[in-house]
């Protein structure tokens, strides 16, 4: 099968591309930087460039769309350009090119407004109530993708939740870095249950979706390890695996929410290229439960996570200790 993977410069995208190659598929990638995946044909550029997208999708059997602008804050127009318009452009090009499988990578944040999620199924994407520009624009993007679904152009949307693992810079690296600097707080009791997803399992799930989309399509699935853990335990184990000591900093929830909101505001006013240290959204994420009903996901994908959290933590520790 000929597969286009967008956003293959990140950990997940490049891992998916490599896994596809290992299974004998022909892989084209589309992103601004080289994917670094040996054997893949890199098309360098943005999904916001229609000509380039048309070129990349030509002759493909399947598309896995991971490219997105991911950040806590930033200019709304920049999010919209990639996450909404880029998705729209890609969908149109893929349909025109006769692509017959489309796997859209989304986020659980598209469907909720920041309150606690306890064993929830994947609700419909809701741009109106999604928190922050990323979630809002990803929600729009997912709606576009699912709206394009048809028997001739089957679409599945996957929403991986809190992916981590060796090589992950988004979550794993940041928590470990902060923990090493003694700046990683545990909010409140640290007991709120969160679902996470070990990177290898995420790759497996996406490959499973490429097969499943021909059977079941037109819906969104949250993908997790199905092993909710108290957020405090998860962060502590990540820190320990990364060679840092267990976070000793504990912040009560209410002040953290206020502080998060304040920092967010200040950040928006100034000129900052990096992420604000704490946002209200992040504070909520770290102090309320976020875990999901995985029954539908596993049924549709015919997939179960291969690596447990305990095994993943052990692999992470080996990664950081260089053994």
């Amino acid at each position, binding site marked *: 099968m000929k597969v286009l993977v967008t956003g293959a410069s990140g950990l997940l995208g490049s891992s998916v591309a490599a896994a596809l190659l290992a299974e004998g598929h022909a892989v084209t990638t589309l992103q601004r930087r080289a994917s670094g995946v040996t054997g893949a044909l890199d098309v360098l550029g943005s999904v916001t460039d229609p000509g380039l997208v048309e070129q990349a999708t030509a002759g493909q059997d399947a598309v896995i769309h991971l490219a997105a602008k991911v950040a806590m804050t930033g200019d709304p127009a920049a999010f919209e350009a990639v996450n909404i318009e880029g998705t729209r452009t890609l969908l149109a090009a893929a349909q025109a090119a006769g692509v017959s499988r489309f796997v859209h990578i989304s986020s659980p944040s598209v469907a909720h407004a920041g309150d606690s999620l*306890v064993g929830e199924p994947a609700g419909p994407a809701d741009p109106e109530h999604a928190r922050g520009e990323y979630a809002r624009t990803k929600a729009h993007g997912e709606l576009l993708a699912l709206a394009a679904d048809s028997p001739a152009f089957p679409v599945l949307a996957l929403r991986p939740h809190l992916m981590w693992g060796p090589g992950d810079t988004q979550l794993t690296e940041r928590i470990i870095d902060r923990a090493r600097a003694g700046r990683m707080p545990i909010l409140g*009791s640290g*007991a709120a*249950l969160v679902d996470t997803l070990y990177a290898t399992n995420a790759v497996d799930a996406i490959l499973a979706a490429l097969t499943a989309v021909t059977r079941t399509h037109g819906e969104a699935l949250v993908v997790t390890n199905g*092993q*909710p853990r*108290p957020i405090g335990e998860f962060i502590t*184990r990540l820190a320990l695996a990364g060679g840092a000591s267990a976070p000793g900093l504990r912040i009560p929830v209410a002040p953290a929410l206020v502080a998060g909101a304040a920092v967010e505001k200040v950040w928006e006013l100034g000129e900052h290229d990096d992420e604000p240290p704490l946002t209200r959204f992040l504070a909520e994420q770290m102090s309320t439960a976020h875990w999901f009903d995985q029954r539908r996901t596993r049924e549709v994908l015919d997939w179960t996570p291969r690596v447990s959290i305990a095994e993943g933590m052990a692999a992470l520790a080996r990664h950081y200790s260089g053994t």
Partner: protein
Amino acid sequence: MKFAAAPAALPGPLPEWDPQWSRLVRADTVDGEHTFHVLDTLPALRAAGREPTGTILALHGNPTWSYLWRHLAAASLRSTTGRTWRVIAPDQLEMGFSDRLAHDALPTTHGPGYRRIAERVTDFDAVVRTLLAEVPATAAATAAATEPATPSPTAGSPAAEAPAGDHPIVTIGHDWGGVLSLTWAARHLDLVDAVISLNTAVHQPEDAPLPAPLQAALAGPMLPTSTVLTDLFLRITLGLGQGPIRKEIKEAFRAPYRTAADRRGIGAFVADIPAQDTHPSRAELEQLGADIAGIDVPALLIWGPKDPVFLERYLRDLRGRLPHADIHRFEKASHLVSEDADVAGLALRWLENRFPAAEAPAADPTHAASGAAAESATAGSPDTQAPGTGAPAAAQSSTDSPLMFDALLARAGDRSIASVDMSQQPPQSVTWAQLAGVVDGIAHGLRDLGLRPGDRVSLLVQPGNNLTAALYAVLRAGGVAVVADAGLGVAGMTRAIKAADPQWIIGQVPGLTLARTAGWPGRRISVSPLNALERTALGVETSITELSRTVPSAPLARPDADDDAAILYTSGSTGPAKGVRYTHARLGALGRKLADHLGVEPGSGLVAGFPPFALLGPGIGATSVTPDMSVTKPRTLTATALADAILTGDCTMVFASPAAYRNVCATAGELSAEQRGACASVELVLSAGAPVPLRLMDALAELFPNAAIHSPYGMTEGLLLTDIDRHGVAAAAAQSRDHGVCVGTPVPGVSLALAPIDAAGRSSSTLLTGAKAVDVLGEFVVSAPHAKAGYDRLWLTDADSKRDELDGRMWHRTNDIGHIDPEGRVWLEGRLQHLLTTADGPLGPGGIEAVVDEVPGVLRSAVVGVGPRGTQAVVIVVEPDAEAPAGARQKPGLADLELTDAVRTAVAGHFAADIAAVLISPTFPTDIRHNSKINRERLAGWADAVLRGEPVGKP
């Protein structure tokens, strides 16, 4: 104030209401035609291509309307098994969306122009006849029976004379709709096949004050203000829900009562309550009371005891008029019973039982006497009925079988010690002869005082000689002993005693004081004689001491084996304590079973370290010694107190709870050489109340080196079901294939079956036995001659527990889950209501707990599920033991990584289940009685909040 007439109307869109149910029906009443708004499910049924095979006539009270019956309508339409029931529920005239008549003035108690009871009954008659005429099966019945519509107290013709073909007609009513529907039914027994009433009142006794909320509403000038001019009465009623009623539901109840003019009917209704002798409706009320007593068709009374208006005395009055009625009390429900509890489910279930669909040809259900219907049919009418009809167990209950008190009476000449109570200072002891004499005296005394066979006697006496004497005397006199122990707590006892509604209370001063202040029913008798002042203050008539001196006159009748003998209570660790009925036959069978199983011989002595066990001594012919301990706190039993008790009674048997044994082992160092010797002479150590871990059994074996250490399994509903000894527990612990708590094999006479549990966590209706039941997760179902006769005034609970028909026996659903191993041993894995349903299937908590309890640092554990059923996350709550670090012991919340890892590793060795979190609770909430049953609901609720990220607090 004048009111213009206003026509009936259809309600607008309302929550939980299908517009298809609303009909406007013209009916010819005493003062001409009026239009009634009626909830009628016939159009919905016919739209679905169904034709009713039964009709429920429902009548609301004040100030509600037919919206009250929406759940019944919906549930009956949803039901696809059994009969197809049509629900007809009119809004009374001037109520709900029915016609409003013109009036010149506000309603008053004596004023003219508004509907009174008599007219309301005939209004109901007019509407339902009009509607019954629409269905051929009911049209014929009504046509044939139009003549005798005039009220007559003698109209109580047997139902069998005019069965409605195979189309039963049943009434149900609530509040004043209850008494009105009963009245209509009583006057049309030719039409009616069964009656159901929710909280209502037939009779207002002259000597009892009106309930406070009504007094306020009726207070002359207040009446129009509270009921018509404002919506106060309406709002108060809607505020009576146990849980708050949702805003949109309250709005729907208020919909027809928006303005003062709309509310005229509410005031009229209140004004028609015949509170005084001079009231125009007084005579009618007296008449209908007599009529209702003539109802001889099946009856079901559904009661919400938290109702501040329709108090217990009204239920007592109804029970008196309808002694054959089945009763179900929703202990947590208030006035709007059907908003607080699943009344629709109960009513339909009862009807299914009473009027099984076509395959049962019996036209007269009261005489259907085979199979489950008969079993369940007798279940809930505890005052009169004989239980267990058709069960093999009943075969044993012939009148000549020994009763519980026979062993005692047989030893009336024996001057050896029968019972010693060392919790008294100085210790109190009685001989068999003394005890038999005292029991005989009290029994005759009670009879002479007016106690009649079947009267219920609440025993508010601490375990000890006094309670033993009182209990056997009550049994001897044919009374029913109500044993609500202090282990239920004051609130639990109050609930239990109000539900049992005893005619008599025998109590010590603390119990009598509670009875007085909490308003418990019953004529009062003290234990010791009281002075005149105390007697008056507590309303006490006499004392047990005085009664014991009664010189026997006429011989006492021997109670029938199938008469009720006792009501015992469940511990209430899973909801309100339930009353469990035992007949004389079943109590006698229990005594014989225990005597056999324990190997009691003449001269055997037992230490009742679980004080209620002292009661059994005279029944099984063993001397009983109660050690010096707090009766309500099992863990106050010390090794020295236990040893002294052994010495005193030369006892060879010891009974206590695990909590008591823990303290005994912890204080064993204080024993003297003589006391240690006494312990060495014990032959049997028995634990009651909860299973005993091997560690504790081993510790006991050190203390009692020559004793067999047994841990029987049972419950209030079947006190002795299986048994296991220490070697059995050790053998079970040594193998790794099974998990849970092994409670051994069934004792002889107990039949055991298993109801498998499905993925959704429900236990199957099909029972497995023998090889098919091995290694299947299921609910244990038992049958034994010494098990319960039934639950008291809990028709639905009783019918549920007896729903199995295997081998034509009477079974009991235990709610305990687990599995049976290939050797036939029973492994408990928790309670059905504590079952977890994970994405990988159902999971009994007990298996994992047994593994976690062995992890160092863990005293005990509770496995609870958080999250939606079917995808619950597994959480382990741990109570740390003394070896755990102090920090871990004191602070509730997440366990540290070390303990978490230890627990996860231990579990992973045996189970595939993923453990989401390990939490610490420094002490577990437990029941009062045993101090050992973990309150898992509370732990689960706490774990759920903590794991949502809410403040940790305490469980």
